């Protein structure tokens, strides 16, 4: 790679240009992560604006239409422009390094994936300026609402998702081929880092579910009516007036939508499985159980979609099936939680920022998991479905869970990505602000939901809800401050302290090479003898030194 970079034409060697034309998985990974973080800040600001509107009853901060646009784009962005791509970014940067490869299998396809993602994101954000504003039918975009709303926002939403889907499918194929073919000598399937396992299942899931989403949103597009050069298409898939079914889309959407949650959650689990052992100075407890449960969760996640549809009036026997199937997922998830806890047991625990985030993840994700049981039990779901209880539930899994894991990953791998550390003191302040702000923002939403406050309402007249809503808004702004601290920390790290190859004394191959790694990743890769190649290496070194000292 190094020689190829030198052979590149002059215009490609500039500071900016070299990033625009790069096919290096590490740079593409960093581009993914950086771009996702920008979308994270934008979508987060949308959340803060919505919280301002809801801080008081009958408030007038946002117009109803604007609020519905924010509801839609906040959700869509957090899933498609933050959750999936930032983890794909970690996957890009880490998978080849972790398996001792020089790059992904198809570097140029990888660059295409990134640029499609960036373009798709720009289309979604740009849709605010479209005729009629952005899409307003929620990130789920149920018809007939989504087929009836006027303006181009909904069409751009569909276009954006199509572009992002193409990006993700190309990326998924790339990950699968890379993991299957490019593992270094000695790295068998059961010696692969658990993060790589999670990206492996992530990729299979994306391949399985995204085409179904594409079908669903294409049907919305056709139902909205197309006119190409005088050629009119008007479909009625979801229009009961013409024999269509309004519920059909929900099946397609949730067949995609539920596994999509695990697409995001599994790599977050993967990050936790890498961070916990390093800061507890132990091997992960039950490697095979964790790897297996990742596969099991991925598989079962495709069999539970209609638990999002318990209120559409499905036959009771079907609801019963979907309840039991959803509960089945709790079993491998529980396995993971207990395995992580056992990883802490009898460890030598250090509270560096990555570990704080990993522990924060554990404490919060459990709450999101437990509230999921209420939603799986369908009669209870009839009561709490589409209320703030659900909003609280999925924010505990996706913000308290995934975002905390992402910060654990950022603080943990930042030294590897940039050769410099993030500031620990700022990092700890950020953690505690985020942890407290998060609970203040989302714990009360459980109570609001139980008290009858539906989600996706731009205002409420019930003054009993004011107290908790105001509390929640205050919490959200505390989180805003925490994110600001991170942005400052990231900028500051450009002049932060330099680190060596392996500042955390970690176990996986990415720490064997320099920080940041050279374009070709490794001069040589040690033969892998277990799931902790660097631990083995250090032990052999110690033994050799011990033997020398004895002689």
């Amino acid at each position: 790679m190094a020689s190829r970079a030198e052979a590149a034409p002059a215009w490609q060697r500039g500071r900016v240009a070299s990033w625009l034309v790069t096919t290096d998985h590490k740079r593409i990974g960093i581009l993914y992560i950086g771009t996702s973080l920008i979308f994270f800040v934008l979508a987060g600001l949308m959340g803060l604006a919505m919280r301002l509107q809801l801080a008081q009853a009958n408030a007038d901060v946002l117009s109803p239409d604007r609020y519905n646009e924010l509801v839609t784009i906040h959700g869509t962005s957090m899933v498609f422009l933050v959750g999936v791509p930032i983890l794909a970014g970690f996957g890009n940067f880490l998978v080849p390094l972790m398996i001792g490869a020089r790059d992904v299998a198809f570097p140029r396809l990888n660059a295409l994936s990134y640029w499609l993602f960036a373009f798709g994101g720009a289309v979604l954000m740009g849709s605010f300026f479209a005729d009629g504003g952005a899409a307003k039918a929620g990130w789920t975009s149920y018809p007939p609402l989504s087929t009836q709303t006027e303006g181009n926002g909904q069409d751009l939403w569909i276009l954006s998702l199509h572009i992002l889907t193409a990006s993700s499918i190309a990326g998924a194929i790339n990950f699968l081929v890379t993991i299957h073919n490019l593992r270094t000598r000695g790295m068998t399937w059961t010696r692969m880092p658990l993060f790589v396992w999670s990206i492996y299942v992530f990729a299979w899931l994306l391949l399985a579910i995204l085409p179904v989403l594409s079908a669903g949103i294409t049907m919305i597009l056709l139902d909205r009516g197309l006119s190409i050069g005088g050629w009119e298409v008007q479909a009625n898939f979801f229009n009961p007036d013409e024999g269509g079914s309004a519920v059909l889309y929900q099946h397609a959407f949730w067949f995609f939508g539920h596994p999509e949650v695990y697409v995001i959650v599994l790599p977050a689990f993967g990050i936790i499985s890498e961070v916990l052992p390093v800061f507890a100075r132990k091997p992960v407890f039950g490697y095979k159980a964790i790897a297996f449960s990742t596969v099991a969760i991925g598989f079962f996640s495709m069999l539970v979609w209609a638990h999002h549809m318990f209120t559409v009036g499905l036959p009771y026997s079907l609801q019963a099936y979907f309840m039991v199937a959803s509960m089945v997922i709790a079993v491998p998830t529980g396995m993971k939680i207990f395995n992580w806890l056992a990883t802490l047991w009898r460890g030598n625990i250090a509270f560096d920022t990555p570990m704080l985030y990993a522990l924060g993840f554990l404490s919060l994700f459990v709450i999101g998991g437990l509230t999921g049981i209420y939603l799986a039990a369908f009669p209870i779901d009839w009561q709490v479905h589409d209320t703030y209880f659900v909003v609280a539930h999925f924010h505990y899994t996706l913000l308290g869970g995934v975002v905390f894991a992402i910060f654990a990953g950022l603080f943990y791998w930042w030294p590897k990505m940039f050769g410099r550390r993030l500031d620990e003191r700022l990092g700890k302040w950020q953690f505690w602000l985020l942890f407290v702000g998060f609970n203040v923002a989302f714990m009360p939403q459980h109570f609001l939901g139980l008290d009858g406050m539906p989600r996706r309402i731009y205002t409420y007249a019930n003054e009993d809800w004011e107290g908790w809503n105001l509390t929640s808004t205050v919490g959200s702004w505390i989180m805003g401050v925490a994110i600001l601290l991170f942005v400052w920390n990231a900028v500051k790290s450009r002049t932060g302290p330099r680190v060596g190859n392996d500042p955390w004394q970690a176990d996986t191959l990415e720490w064997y090479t320099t920080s940041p790694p050279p374009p070709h990743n490794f001069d040589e890769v040690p033969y892998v003898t277990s799931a902790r190649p660097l631990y083995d290496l250090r032990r052999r070194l110690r033994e050799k030194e011990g033997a020398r000292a004895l002689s």
Partner: protein
Amino acid sequence: MRVLFLLVGSTLLAAIAAPAALGQLTPVTPESPNADGIKDSYLFVSIFTLAIFVLVEGLLVAFVWRYRRRRRQRFEDGAQIHGATNLELMWTAFPVVVLFLIAVFVFVELPGIKNVPAAGPRGELEIRVIGRQFYWQFEYPNGVIAIDTLRAPAGVPVRLEVTAPDQDVIHSWWIPALGGKIDAIPGRVNKTWFQVDRPGLYPGQCAELCGVEHARMLGAVEVLPEAEFAAWLDERRAGQTAGTSELGAELWAGVCAKCHGLKGEGGIAKALAGSALLADPQTVETIVRNGRVTRRATMPAVGAGWPAEQMDALTTYLQESPPSGE
């Protein structure tokens, strides 16, 4: 570190204890047997979720406290334990047992939640609930129509057939005290029910995003003593025929005012106070039945499919008491 743990621990405890004391950790107080069954299931699940919450968070805090580094070397190995098959089998089996118990409990409660009690000597009532942008229309067997507030007799099973017109969007019918929600979907008829003994007003609102004024699509059930209900139903029936009922006022408040303002002062839609159109029944009917598309806004066909009696109620009301604007 220690101080921080105590601080966070006590905040979390306070966050849980305060609302628990106020009864906010449970759904709204049930007033109908199906809501009762749901709350019982909720409480049963809570036994396990709270126990697991305490167990997991307790272990987490205990391990973090007990196995923190203290004076050990930064990179000194912890115990090199790779797993323990029996232990892992145990904590795989444990959730299976818990979930099995929860599923069994749900199936035991289910009949009491989904099945309408048999009609007693006082009979039963069936009402059609139609969700529309952005109001609830209730149709009684004798043709009486009501908007947004469903009146029902105490002590009698009330069956609801919940739907939405073909050209409308999906809504969700939900009165928290009276049971779970059920979607009102174009082209489908869903069923639910309630039976309330205590007269009173039970509020709720649409629970499925249905468009710009979704947040204002409130609904309520007003349970009246049986005789009072019968009197109301007869009076409304006669009033609807004679054109003297309260229906006109209900239509204005429920159908028009959410966008145009209760006094016609305007809202997300233009002000109607003082508009000459309101005095002309024919124009009002045309607009209300077909909706209206202007360059700036689209008014849905809020009155498509209304019977003549219902349309007359609105036009008469508008002529007799046009919105004042103030």
